[in-house]
């Protein structure tokens, strides 16, 4: 699958630092967009590309930590590399627990920052990939009929067509047709493939008879 060029976002209220980070990241070959405040960053329409956010902890009004919480709340998976003039341990722990890629204390070596950015981009890229796959799977899953959705978990739990037919109170032949439809619509190459898809979609164990659907 083709992937767009990554974009690195920088939010730092200190002009000199912002310019320096922007320059360093740009010379390392990234597309950089810099902002003086968290609000400016939030207002910006972001391109649909993998990226990373280099975020100063101490910002006027909305702080870096606040922005992190804001992004988590809105389901944004953009990885964050925190930079701070002076970080204390509780602050670092809080940021890392909330999923930050790295917590760097200024001044830092370029390898540390760029390495963290690359790691962030990688993470984001993977996350985006997963999300994209999940979306595709979900689209496929949504094309299934109600009956086919009933058959899906029973098939992935390894039941035979006969057993499925018994459970559903229908003929083995009908089940076989449904099964074929599921395999086809889900674009599954094998039963193992379908099982993995079921896991990804969160369609689990039919033993209990429960059906879960994960958004």
């Amino acid at each position: 699958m083709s992937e767009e060029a990554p974009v690195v976002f920088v939010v730092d209220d200190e002009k000199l630092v912002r310019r320096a980070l922007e320059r360093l990241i740009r010379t390392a070959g990234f597309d950089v967009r810099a902002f003086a405040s968290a609000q400016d960053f939030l207002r910006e329409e972001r391109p649909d590309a993998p990226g990373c956010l280099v975020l100063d902890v101490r910002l006027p009004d909305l702080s870096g930590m606040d922005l992190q919480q804001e992004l988590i709340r809105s389901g944004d998976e953009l990885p964050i590399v925190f930079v701070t003039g002076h970080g204390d341990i509780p602050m670092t722990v809080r940021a890392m627990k909330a999923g930050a890629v790295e917590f760097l204390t200024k001044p830092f070596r370029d390898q540390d920052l760029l390495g963290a950015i690359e790691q962030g981009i990688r993470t984001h890229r993977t996350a985006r990939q997963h999300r994209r796959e999940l979306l595709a799977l979900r689209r496929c899953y949504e094309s299934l009929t109600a009956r086919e959705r009933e058959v899906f978990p029973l098939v992935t739990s390894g039941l035979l067509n006969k057993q499925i037919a018994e459970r559903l109170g229908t003929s083995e032949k009908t089940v076989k047709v449904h099964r074929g439809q599921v395999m086809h619509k889900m674009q599954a190459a094998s039963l193992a493939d379908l099982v993995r898809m079921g896991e990804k979609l969160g369609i689990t164990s039919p033993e209990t008879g429960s059906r879960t659907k994960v958004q």
Partner: protein
Amino acid sequence: MNREESAPASVWPVRSRSNLHALMERSALARWVLAPVLVAIGSAVDLVLQSYNIRRPTPEILLATIVITVWYAGAGPGLLAVALSILSLAYYFLPPSNSFAVGRPDLLYFASFIFFALLTDWFSSLRRRTERALNQARSELEIKVAERTAELAGRNQTLQLEIAERQRVEEELRRSEAYLAQAQRLSQTGSWAWSAAPAKVSLSEEALRIYGLSPAHAVCVPDILLREVLPEDRSVLEGLVNGAIRDRRDFEIDYRIVLPDGVRYLHSVGRPVVNGSGEVAEVIGTTLDVTDRKRAEQDLQEANSQLAHASRVQAMGELTASIAHEINQPLAAVVANADACTRLLAGKTLNMGELREAVGDIAEAGARAGEVIARIRTFLSKAPPATRRPVCLNQVIREVLDLTRSELDRHQVSVRSELKPGLPDVLGDRVELQQVILNLVMNGIEAMLPETGRPRVLGIHSQAGEAGTVQVTIRDSGIGLPAATSDRIFDAFFTTKPAGLGLGLAISRSIIEAHGGRLWALDGKGNSGAAFRFTLPACSRETP
């Protein structure tokens, strides 16, 4: 004694004089009786002498009676004695006897007797009068002498009293001078008089001691004195004395003199004295040796300044996080730019524009870091005491806000500053004033930390205060001051903070008061937070 002294001057038989004369003086009858008695006695004696034929009848005895009568009884009875003597002569001694008739041959004799009797009477009267006048004059003289003597005695007495009084006054004066000298000695205050023409200075004993001069210099030329004064103070002192003489102005001056045992600090007060013709002839004044006081003041000032310094170091300690941030920011920019440059230089083509900008930013960031360090160094410096200069309070406030910006950001405190432009400067020590404002700002931040519900706002407000002062108010939106402690917050070692030394406000107040101002807590209304205000006297623009 005068009377006794005058006694030997009298040659007169005092006793007979006093008896017979006193009788004659007293009684006119006695006077008039004396003539006939004496004439009778004289005639009787003559008659007796004649009857015994001792001699021829002569008029001498009768003339003698006239003389005696005149002498004792005066001119009137004298004339009576003359008449009686003539009659006695005519009756008893000139033939015919026992008749008043006088024979022709005796007429000439008789006439000559009358003539001599009258002559005797006249002469005796004259003598008596002269004697009496003399006597009179003598007694008058005696009285006058007595009077004069008495007067002299009186005057002598007065003089003696005056002498005694003067001695007393002199004694008193001496004592008073001794007291004055003692008082001058005790209070280390000397007095002096500085006259313009001829130029000379008179010094009291204590003044001599203060200036370290020998008693030979009690009156000396001003140069002797001025020679001791430190060169930088000399012209000021001279100018003030001359100004006092010229413009009749009082003056007061603190200056230093150098003596073999070291520098002494003196305080002099002078006042021109206007003479009868309305000119200032001299300036009188006092000089107080304030060396000990000055040294104590300096020691105190030093102790205060060390305490203030310690408190600043502590304040800085509390700001460590912010300071680290302040310095690391530009350092980060330097490092990042340098790394960018390395990458740019490693590239196949050189982007000169980008390189130039990066290097420019490095320089700017380096300078920024230097500024931060300098600001902290200034704040932590041990400023020599009393480096008072005109200071713009608004600028000091801005510097403190710069210093605490990261601290304010860190705790998400927004600052609302209303700094009145064009406020007059105040005369003060910049670092100490920074310390006061920093202290109040840090207190404000700390007071708002427990507040989570509402925005943290620190208000800083500067404006012109009453009576030529500049007023600064710092208000937080915290919980405010507990009423019970608000009157103790300025006490040293009183603190409501677990880690506080309790010196911040005490030192702040002592700094402000040392600058001639006031620092107090404003009455909090409701839950509007705590507010502190200080005022400092504005200095006039022309003050150096």
